[in-house]
């Protein structure tokens, strides 16, 4: 049920996405992430259109990490920051990070080919039901997404909502 992709530009880096529903311990998970006990980005799936959006954020985070130009303190906070259309770090966490009362969580881990323990460690901490990552489409809140990314109706005529979202993520540094 995990979705693992290789980052083309960084061939030794994998990104694994795991989607959980009926999560009962989001607060505890978030706390563990803050304390560094979980090495992962915990994302609110209602703000995600598609796993590709997460890959775009992760690719950029790994890139900025590699060249020492991250805007936040860790690779995982950088992934969350990259999802946001604005450059305010606190906004990004509020909108894209998991909140204590959430009952669905997208967990994103960046790892090497043989680092599979990092993944099982996380599944152990989550009190919830893992579902296929493609179930994202049933959780995502497109009205909220359109509002936050300021997607215009005309824009949806020449491309998908996903395209509109990743464009804004790619360009936010120079807005």
């Amino acid at each position, binding site marked *: 049920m995990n979705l693992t*992709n290789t*980052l*083309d*530009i*960084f061939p030794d880096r994998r990104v694994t996405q795991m989607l959980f529903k009926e999560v009962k311990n989001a607060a505890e998970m978030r706390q563990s992430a803050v304390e560094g006990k979980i090495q992962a980005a915990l994302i609110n799936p209602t703000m995600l259109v598609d796993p*590709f959006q997460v*890959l*775009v954020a992760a*690719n*950029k985070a790994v*890139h900025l990490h*590699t*060249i020492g*130009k991250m805007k936040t303190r860790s690779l995982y906070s950088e992934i969350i920051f990259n999802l946001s259309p604005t450059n305010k770090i606190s906004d990004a966490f509020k909108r894209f990070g998991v909140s204590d009362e959430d009952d669905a969580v997208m967990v994103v881990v960046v790892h090497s080919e043989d680092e599979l323990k990092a993944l099982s460690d996380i599944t152990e901490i989550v009190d919830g039901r893992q579902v296929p990552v493609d179930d994202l489409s049933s959780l995502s809140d497109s009205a909220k997404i359109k509002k936050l990314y300021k997607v*215009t109706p*005309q*824009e949806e*005529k*020449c*491309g998908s909502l996903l*395209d*509109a979202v*990743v*464009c*804004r993520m*790619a*360009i936010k*540094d*120079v807005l």
Partner: protein
Amino acid sequence: MMAVSEFLSRAELLKQGAEARVYRVQLLGRPTIVKERFPKLYRHPELDKKLTHRRTVQEVRSILRCRRAGIPAPSLYFVDYTSHCIFMEDVVNSCTVRDHIALLQRSDSPQQLEHLEHLAEQVGRLLAQMHDEDVIHGDLTTSNILLRAPGSGSGSELVLIDFGLSYISALPEDKGVDLYVLEKAFLSTHPHTEPLFEKLLQSYTCSSPRATAVINKLDEVRLRGRKRSMVG
């Protein structure tokens, strides 16, 4: 070496231009075009970096501005502002308007003229829309407009590319010069197409209430161009 440069060294090179190299790659599962602006060694390094950065920024900003207004331009996936690379949607199953015009001209279909005129009208409409958003393309040619293979769904079939020289301006003069650049390129790439270009301009004029002022400026610019060539 930086990861991005190393990645591109293994990629398929599509075009080696004077300012940039264009590659075709797969990125995160999607067919992707990479435009890499490289340093110009004859320029002062600091100045060169600033100019190259500015072009990259102009290009991505104009693409977003067009898309927001419903004007098709490639979607953006990733921008590396350090190595000045733009990773964008590869508009698959497309050809340039340049190649398509040439193809139509060689065909002996009875509808040849009709198809050419339809295409010219589409281009005119698209450019009027772009100028209504105050985007000046800066390098309009028939190679910088792609035609998506007919029947691939999504409404309008034309896609604007290569916004590296673009900027934002509401001045009819700037829009007139934009059309003048296209006219020069159009008539030299496609000889004996004056009536076709006239169709393009007619469609441009009909598509925007602000077009008349632009066409008047185009006439002025043409006159200046002619005077200059008489002197020089």
